[in-house]
């Protein structure tokens, strides 16, 4: 385990440093707030000769991801970074990257989608590409962003997986917030990730291949089934890599992290930086004797449904916190999936959904305490008045 000096890094700096230590073969990127710094810092590492990366400047995010797919198909270890409109401009090629099984790593900074234009944090962008075949890992803080980037390489490149991975942080809250983190030595990172051995290479003239061929009714379905299997395989690999990372460096990772969850009667389920704020609310309420806890989901794709059901089954009432709205009128994306995961339990906790923090609207300890109080009322036999609620919007 490393016991080095802590360093002060923003989320963006932490992700850029991880990229430097990973030293990918190719980075193709286009800048966008609040992710710009990641690739900007990385480009300075390239200019300073700290990495061997071929840095490709492109004219859009669509081109960035296209160049990434090309380079990855050629056998390179490839990374990029983006956010918001950039991510959804990439959307077409995100599906292709997963479909042709390119283990590209994307540093994604969660930001609201237009319109109205907004540069601040919510999870709309990442959620909008949740079915693209990318593994999606959320980070609570700079440290997790750094650790997740390094693990993402091992997860995506695993021969049983070979899927692209996006590691996300919350825009501005984490991307531009300075915190102390513990970094690994360059060599530790290199030893952990190992060299990349592509299954195939476009440039291998001795073993020529075609990438991105046409599938009709006769093959398309089978290929989609393969990708689903890769996601399934990813679950095992994510846990193995998270465990090994913990053994080597002292910080273990799983699909999710419970906080005071085991003996809790009520709990919140959420993604990203809000979990940190919720811990403070849990501690305060625990002091007052409230049996509350929280579950912070780290891996949204693949979705650990069975494991979540197991971890949440003892609760009396749960509030799922969505920092994006599906606009389905039936709840946010996290809520619908968590509720579905719990459907087969013999006795199900009561569940409510809060859409919160859209466009960077602040969420406070007091807001979260209020939700726990509502859960107390529900767990005490009170009626659920509204399953879906908008927290902090001006009514």
């Amino acid at each position, binding site marked *: 385990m490393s016991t080095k*000096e*802590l*360093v*002060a890094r923003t989320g963006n700096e932490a992700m850029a440093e991880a990229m430097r230590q990973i030293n990918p073969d190719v980075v193709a990127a286009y800048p966008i707030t*609040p992710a710009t710094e990641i690739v900007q810092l990385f480009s300075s590492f390239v200019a300073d000769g700290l990495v061997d990366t071929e840095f490709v400047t492109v004219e859009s995010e669509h081109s960035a991801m296209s160049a990434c797919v090309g380079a990855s198909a050629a056998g390179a270890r490839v990374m990029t970074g983006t956010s918001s409109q950039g991510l959804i401009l990439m959307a077409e090629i995100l599906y292709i990257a997963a479909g042709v099984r390119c283990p590209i790593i994307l540093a994604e900074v969660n930001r609201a989608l237009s319109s109205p234009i907004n*540069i*601040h944090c919510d999870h709309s962008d990442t959620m909008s590409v949740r079915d693209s075949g990318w593994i999606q890992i959320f980070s*609570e*803080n700079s440290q997790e962003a750094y650790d997740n980037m390094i693990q993402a390489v091992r997860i995506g490149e695993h021969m049983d997986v070979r899927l692209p991975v996006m590691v996300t942080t*919350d825009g*501005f*809250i*984490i991307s*531009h*917030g*300075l*915190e*102390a983190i513990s970094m690994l030595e360059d060599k530790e990172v290199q030893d952990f990730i190992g060299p990349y051995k592509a299954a195939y290479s476009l440039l291998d003239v001795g073993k020529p291949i075609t990438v991105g061929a046409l599938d009709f009714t006769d093959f398309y379905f089978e290929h989609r089934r393969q990708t689903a299997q890769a996601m399934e395989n990813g679950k095992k690999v994510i846990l193995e890599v998270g465990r090994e990372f913990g053994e080597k460096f002292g910080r273990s990772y799983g699909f999710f992290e419970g906080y005071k969850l085991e003996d809790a009667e009520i709990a919140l389920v959420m993604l990203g*930086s*809000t*979990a*940190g*704020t919720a*811990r*403070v609310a849990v*501690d305060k309420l625990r002091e007052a004797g409230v049996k509350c806890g929280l579950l912070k989901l780290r891996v949204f794709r693949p979705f650990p449904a069975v494991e979540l059901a197991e971890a949440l089954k003892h609760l009396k009432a749960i509030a799922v916190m969505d920092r994006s709205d599906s606009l389905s009128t039936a709840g946010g994306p996290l809520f619908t999936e968590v509720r579905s995961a719990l459907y087969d339990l013999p006795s199900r906790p009561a569940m409510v959904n809060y859409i919160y923090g859209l466009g960077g609207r*602040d*969420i*406070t*300890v007091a807001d979260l305490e209020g939700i726990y109080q509502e859960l107390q009322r529900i767990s005490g036999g009170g009626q659920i008045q509204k399953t879906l609620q908008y927290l902090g919007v001006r009514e």
Partner: protein
Amino acid sequence: MGKLLEIRWHGRGGQGAKTGALLLGEVLVNTGKFMQAFPDYGPERMGAPMRAYNRISDEPITLHSGVTNPEVVVVLDATLLGKVDVTAGLPEDGVLIVNTPQEPGEIRKQLGLSGRKLFTIDANKISQETIGRAIPNTPMLGALVKVTGLVEYEHLITDARKTLTKKFQHKPEVIDGNIKAIERAYQEVHGE
């Protein structure tokens, strides 16, 4: 979570309030204290009022909400007084440090302020004389550390130099100027 200290910096775009908050974060990172530093973001405009924040604690900080009740407020530009409510959320025993050639008493009268502890420092003059430009953030850091005793003086100087060296390695005169500015502000800040 143990005792949490929250600081709010007021400045105008371009004056370095964000850099001041980040520099304080960097200076604290190896003192055994836990810290956060972050700005408020909007459209970035030179001259527009902006805020930046620090959180400091002896225990890990997991809070990721905004700062609404800071114990310490640092004002980089006295022309903000009266235009921006710099004392918003500041408790009765809170600390207000203002960059101005005026005396604390005059500022108190100007703001019609009761309670709170007021300190002033002429950071513009100091930065003009040491750095050659009115960039008041480093002197305000010196004043802030003097008033709050957040970190040992020697540590402040050593770590501030270390951090500035990373940013201005090709401009040693900027590093020396900033360090002098911190030293002078540390000496010259005064309360009522």
